[in-house]
């Protein structure tokens, strides 16, 4: 017994190192396969408010550019509004499946294989896990964790991201993933070989997801090739968004999602 205690005392730093390394490796390996940690992420109070303060200072530097982007979007929306027939059925009974909440990015990241973005709205403003996030140009990611004032968003530039997408004006859909190589290119997989694909085709979100509405732009086809099994296409997509330069974003809340999930769960349970 004495010798065991002596042994432990002698190598106590090595044991401590092993213990600390074990804890951090468990965290690391979990982060590769599961959701982001609920307690240790940048939407927490301390990191959230520090990022918010620095954004308050630096956001003045690109106000001009941001104003221009918003004015362009207003122009587009106004032209849509003026050209809309007054008494169509759609105008009388507008669909209100989706709520839109605007927010600003306080921390962006695109150089790591698992990128998370921090935004300045949280559960106080109605945000919750698994809401879609877009910009004026296209899709950005999905809300992963929320605190009361901040939220983290799993960017589409994340190897864990998997979003339903399709080729515009067709119903062929596949999964949108990222191979961690270039921050302006993502991959679309599982498009069958018989589908006619051309470089320059637009890719939009598909209807299979309860997170994003259909037809939100993603990007255009940059190049494509068949996968190893020669049966599906692997398509490289050039994103519309410049992921390195983002500020204003919109969070989309699907009002029917709880009902949809409940229905899907009941169906799965019944089997």
């Amino acid at each position, binding site marked *: 017994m004495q010798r065991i205690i002596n042994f432990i005392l002698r190598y106590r730093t090595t044991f401590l190192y092993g213990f600390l390394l074990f804890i951090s490796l468990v965290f690391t390996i979990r982060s590769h396969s599961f959701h982001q940690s609920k307690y240790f992420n940048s939407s927490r109070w*301390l990191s959230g408010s520090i990022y918010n303060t620095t954004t308050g200072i630096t956001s003045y530097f690109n106000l001009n550019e941001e104003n221009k982007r918003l004015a362009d979007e207003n122009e587009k929306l106004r032209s849509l509004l003026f050209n809309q027939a007054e008494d169509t059925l759609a105008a009388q009974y507008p669909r209100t499946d989706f709520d839109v909440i605007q927010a600003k990015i306080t921390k962006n990241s695109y150089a790591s294989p698992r990128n998370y973005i921090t935004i300045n709205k949280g559960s106080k403003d109605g945000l919750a896990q698994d809401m879609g996030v877009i910009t004026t140009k296209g899709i950005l990611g999905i809300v992963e964790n929320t605190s009361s004032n901040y939220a983290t968003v799993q960017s589409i530039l994340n190897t864990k991201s998997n979003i339903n997408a399709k080729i515009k004006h067709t119903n062929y859909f596949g999964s949108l993933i990222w191979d961690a190589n270039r921050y302006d290119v993502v991959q679309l997989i599982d498009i069958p070989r018989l589908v006619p694909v051309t470089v320059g085709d637009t890719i939009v979100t598909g209807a299979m997801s309860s997170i994003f509405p259909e037809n939100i732009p993603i990007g255009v086809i940059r190049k494509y090739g068949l996968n190893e099994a020669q049966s599906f296409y692997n398509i490289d997509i050039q994103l519309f968004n410049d992921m390195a330069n983002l500020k204003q974003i919109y969070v989309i809340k699907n009002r029917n999602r709880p009902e949809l999930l409940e229905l899907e769960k009941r169906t799965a349970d019944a089997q």
Partner: protein
Amino acid sequence: MLSNPIILNAFRFILLVLAQVLLFNHLNFLNFINPLVYVLFFYWYPIRENRAAFLLIGFLLGLVIDLFSDTLALHTVACVTLAYVRPIIMRFCFGANFDFQNFTFKNSTRVQRMTFLLLLIIVQHTLYYSLEILSLSHFVLILKKILFTSILTFVICVLLSSLFAIENE
């Protein structure tokens, strides 16, 4: 005030964390290079350390940076390992002199100090980037990131360490 080692190191801890998460994490030089400058904490820390306390401080430093960067536990693994292997690297760089009680950074040569810094950076970057991707199919990408980020980190650390050199250390 700064002559008290505890206050001095707490001060360094906070400043290096802020510099890392607010400035260097967003550098994105050539779109992928973000130097990990907090390695300077391990370079500057007093030579005669309490090893257990040093391991715990390293763990805390990594955890705080991970919390800000949403890279849970990658920086922590790198930091804890740096804290553990630091005495080994020091003995390798400073040779037999290191075992004398009156050894300080001042009576080591510049080459020895640079080798010490470079070895710390290599250990840190190798661990960080291999665990970050953790897949053999991205082997070239991992090597590219380790190489270029190490070079930039080394350059910035040399600049910072000569800028903030403290006379009586």
